């Protein structure tokens, strides 16, 4: 089961790994640079403009970080996200992929926190990181014969995929750079969990219920799919 040495090889692979590593680093640098050099959005985070005295003194604790702290946090989290996402792309080993995905999902949760969507961030952590990802890892564990088994697609496909994805990314960036977003005026009211819950149980009641039913169906279906053959 753990005959790793066989699959891993010894000398040549490390050279390959080094080359691969430098390639990764180059791509990471380029992409994170793009993110960092992103133009200033037309919408400012309006924390500074009008906050209550409570928030100024920081007693409530839920106030988003203001001033310099926010960009610093954002860039840190965004870089983590991007690096982790690219790690998922590049990783060959499925468990490594899963760990990169873990980091990516966790930093997406951080992005949610930065976007003042606390509840969503927590749910992302619980459901995605605590649930989905574990499920994936389970899948990996239950299905892999050897941790170093790799299924490499043909090189041509790799190159094609890289070209297409790169082009798509560039095109998306162009769109983003050139898009003009409407500005938000006035105070940005905080979104409380209560609002979320109220909307879920009023406006979005039907989707909410449907999602519940779906989950149940999925539960039954998954149990059926993965059951022991008797």
């Amino acid at each position, binding site marked *: 089961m753990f005959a790793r040495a066989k699959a891993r090889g010894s000398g040549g692979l490390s050279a390959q790994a080094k080359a691969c590593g430098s390639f990764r680093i180059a791509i990471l640098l380029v992409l994170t640079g793009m993110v960092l050099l992103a133009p200033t959005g037309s919408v400012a985070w309006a924390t500074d403009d009008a906050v209550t*005295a409570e928030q*100024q*003194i920081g007693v409530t604790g839920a106030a988003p970080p203001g001033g310099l702290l926010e960009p610093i946090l954002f860039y840190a989290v965004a870089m983590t996200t991007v690096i982790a996402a690219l790690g998922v792309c590049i990783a060959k080993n499925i468990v490594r992929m899963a760990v990169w995905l873990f980091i990516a999902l966790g930093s997406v949760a951080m992005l949610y926190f930065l976007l003042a969507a606390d509840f969503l961030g927590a749910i992302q952590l*619980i459901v995605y990181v605590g649930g989905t990802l574990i499920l994936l890892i389970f899948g990996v*564990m239950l299905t892999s014969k050897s941790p170093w088994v790799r299924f490499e697609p043909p090189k041509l496909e790799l190159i094609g995929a890289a070209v297409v994805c790169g082009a798509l990314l560039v095109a998306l960036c162009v769109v983003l750079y050139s898009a003009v977003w409407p500005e938000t005026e006035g105070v940005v009211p905080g979104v409380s969990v209560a609002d979320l819950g109220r909307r879920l149980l009023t406006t979005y009641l039907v989707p909410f219920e449907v999602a519940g039913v779906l989950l149940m169906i999925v539960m039954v279906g998954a149990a059926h799919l993965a059951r022991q053959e008797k």
Partner: protein
Amino acid sequence: MTQFSVPWLPRPERGNYGFPAKAVVAAIVLLVVAAVFYWVTNTFLGGRPVAMLLLVAAPILVAIMAAAAAFAVSTWRAWGPILFKTAPFLLIGAVIASCVCVWAANALFEWAREDLVAAAANDPGATTWFNGPLTLDEIVSASPALLPAWISPLIWPLQFPLFRDVVSMTTLIIFFTIVPVFVIWWERKVAGRIQSRLGPMRVGGWHGWAQSPADGIKLVLKEDLVPKEADRILFRLAPYFAIIPAAAAYMALPFGVTYVFRDLDIALVFILALLGIGVVAVIVAGWASNNKWSIYGAMREACQMVSYEIPMGMALLVPVLCVGSLSLREIGEAQAEGWFSWLAFSNPFAFIAFVSYFIASLASCKRAPFDLPEAESELVAGFLTEYSGFRWALFFFAEYAAMFVICGLAVILFLGGWHSPLPASWGAAWGDGILARGLKGVLFSGPIWFVLKGTFFLYVQLWLRWTLPRIRIDQVLYACIQVLLPLTMILVLGSTLWVWAGMSESGAWTVFDRIVTWVLGVVGMIFALGLPAIAAYGFYHRRRLVGSLVIDPLPGS
């Protein structure tokens, strides 16, 4: 290969003067920093922050120095038996002192804050943080009557959130560090007593008090081993995956109304999420170890934690339903009115939910009888098999920290949080004087109560661990999916109905509700008083009860 050293044995020929020297150096550095801080604030900010420094930073310094001193004592006996004997008391005293100081500072600030807020509300043009900091004069003028002038520099820096964060975080890190050190020693003592042994008795002097620090030092000094066939990166990453969520959970855990680093609206969900992440560390550690036992342990753990999160979360929904908030502060504050206002007694479902939650939480932080992932009799040590040294210690730090977090959750959600069994309204007439606040903080509500209750449930966990046999993995999953899950679902439903019935505000229901609450409260009281009573009985008859206790002389002594 690092040489094994046994630091607590005297080595007269070589000596080990390095460690206390480092401690002294650290103290000196800290003092220098403090001096610079004093100078800077005195020069540029026109305040007199030295008192503040003493008040806020001194306990931290004291604690660190005391710890350093204690280590020094334990490693170098030449310092003398007196200091050696008193070191634990110094240490504990330092900890308590630091806690009290932080508490006092916080209380002071709370007191001043109200005036500041009032001032800001009265005068729209008043100086705020964004226009520049409040001056000392402004603080004095904002709270003229009661605040002595000398105290204003003490609270001046607290208006800066960053500063407050730094203070709180320091305190939390100290707590986070001390809890495992203390609990591990305590657990070993408890285990010993339960098994008619004495537990650690040697290291230190007074009941082996230095055993945990000594182990910690040993672990730090151990060789940093990574198995050859392991996935090196993930192997090294795993402990951080474990400890970061555990530490982060303290961010949202309130020790009191205002004693919270970040009072989130969704604190409960946040803490649950962070506790849930811990499983990733276990899986990664197990997989990266490239060891059969490790991966078995990891898979078991993953199964168990993922499964038990569901009943745990469902059980926690019950108090959430009763209060109508996910904020731990609000939930805690809803139980201010004494023993019978605690949520565990609010309805029968909550009472059962408390028990269910406690069981599920035991499983989700892999404590006995659910400690299958590390079942040493079957799996060597489960996912920890290949770990040693500081990485291993990090896992344990995470585990014990998580233990305290779940105990804290239990206390906040079910058992009144930081409130004492006495109703807070009894102190309403005492006014808002500083003395009254302090007294109320001790008598009615304060972090001390939270810590006390949390520690009690920690003790319950230890107690369960050393009295219950480990159960099989199929029993674990059976208990979760077929017992706890339906049970908690029923509890949520029943609690919902109960709350809904209470919303009708019918008189009969109110009376019924009160009666049920009283009955449950009395049952809880019987438990709460019964345990100390039994303990007291045991203590009184300890000679007879532990008559079979055998104290063999250790070999060589």
